[in-house]
């Protein structure tokens, strides 16, 4: 019923003329009606538990202080049974192909210094264990937070004499996936006391609640205000990032966090900030904090 009323008022607005403002109004009305409709349909996250290769994953965690919900919920809980099953079995999880590829890269010599990742870091299952659960981290040289992708680039350019990866190249995604996979099951926790991390967190929080784009949506419009409701066929989650890079059936491949956030921003019909820009790094710091206590699920499987 909500839908009918909203569409009816939208039609009235457009019949008055073709001026641009009215068109935008119609657009906004359409967006509101989608969310209005969603309000009618309640869905529940599953109560199943997730175990991968005998390791129990934390998919429900007590909220950190200042978090809007009582519980931090993994996106896994919101997905279809088949999608959940694909992630629960590491053999059927196609994201494991990226982990395997990442291991090859880890052991491959690249750059002018004749080194591979393994030359310095040896066995990743020991040296990288739990490391990915604590990024983004403050980088004193760059005076900004960096994520795993940027840490890899730093190593490549400074220690290997290799070039930084092009954003979202297959190798960048595979190596990031491999490194984060070494933290599978480890609870996410970032250190906000390092450097200026707190001010980046503040900036990220402001971005999270700022409405942008022609559809005038903020991150919170979907992932907080309408969390756990259906937006058309999609069950809105809390927008957690503990499983990135993630395997998406949508694209049949690995999707990096900055690619995913850019996709969300594109869907609000706003201009997309560049990957690893200050805007997206601040958002990554804040959004990662929102997932405090959840297990790293990389490579998670999503729709």
């Amino acid at each position, binding site marked *: 019923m909500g839908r009918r009323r909203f569409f009816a008022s939208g039609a009235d607005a457009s019949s008055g003329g073709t001026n641009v403002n009215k068109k935008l109004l119609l657009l906004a009305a359409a967006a509101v009606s989608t969310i209005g409709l969603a309000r009618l349909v309640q869905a529940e996250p599953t109560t199943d538990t997730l175990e991968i290769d005998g390791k129990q994953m934390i998919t429900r965690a007590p909220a950190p202080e200042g978090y809007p919900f009582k519980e931090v919920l993994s996106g896994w809980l919101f997905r279809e049974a088949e999608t959940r099953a694909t992630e629960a*079995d590491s053999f059927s999880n*196609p994201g494991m192909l990226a982990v395997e*590829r990442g291991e090859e890269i880890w052991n491959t010599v690249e750059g002018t210094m004749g080194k591979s990742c393994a030359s310095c870091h040896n066995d990743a299952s020991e040296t990288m264990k739990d490391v990915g659960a604590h990024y983004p981290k403050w980088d004193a040289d760059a005076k900004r937070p960096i994520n795993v992708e940027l840490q890899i680039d730093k190593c490549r350019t400074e220690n290997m004499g290799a070039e930084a990866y092009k954003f979202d190249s297959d190798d960048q995604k595979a190596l990031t996936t491999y490194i984060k996979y070494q933290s599978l099951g480890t609870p996410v926790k970032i250190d906000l006391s390092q450097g200026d991390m707190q001010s980046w967190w503040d900036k990220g929080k402001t971005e999270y609640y700022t409405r942008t784009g022609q559809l005038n949506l903020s991150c919170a419009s979907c992932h907080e205000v309408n969390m756990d409701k259906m937006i058309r066929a999609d069950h809105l989650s809390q927008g957690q990032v503990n499983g990135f890079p993630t395997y998406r059936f949508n694209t049949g491949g690995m999707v990096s966090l900055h690619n995913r956030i850019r996709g969300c921003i594109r869907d609000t019909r706003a201009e997309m900030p560049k990957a690893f820009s200050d805007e997206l790094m601040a958002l990554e710091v804040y959004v990662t904090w929102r997932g405090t206590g959840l297990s790293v699920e990389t490579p998670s499987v999503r729709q």
Partner: protein
Amino acid sequence: MATPKPRVKLPKKAKAGETIVIKTLISHEMESGQRKDKEGKVIPREIINKFTCEFNGKPVFACDMEPAISANPYFEFNAKVSESGKFKFTWVDDNGSVYTDEAAIEVS
């Protein structure tokens, strides 16, 4: 595209007459032939078009695949085993390549 890499998973041991679960996955882009590149040219179809599984030379499971099947095709099926032996898996690519994998099982 990276060289497709097959993976199979089945128990190493089983009892005679037991029904076992076999899981297979191969990394492959499964280019449908329906997409166009930036210049508007059709990207030619290249998929895995056939998958077979044999046990000691006898067919266990086989199927043809079509362009609508997603990347990295995954199959899970059952087989009843009565003797020790070897499972052989074969994937046939549109480009003529054939990828194979084998797994032995001990039946007591």
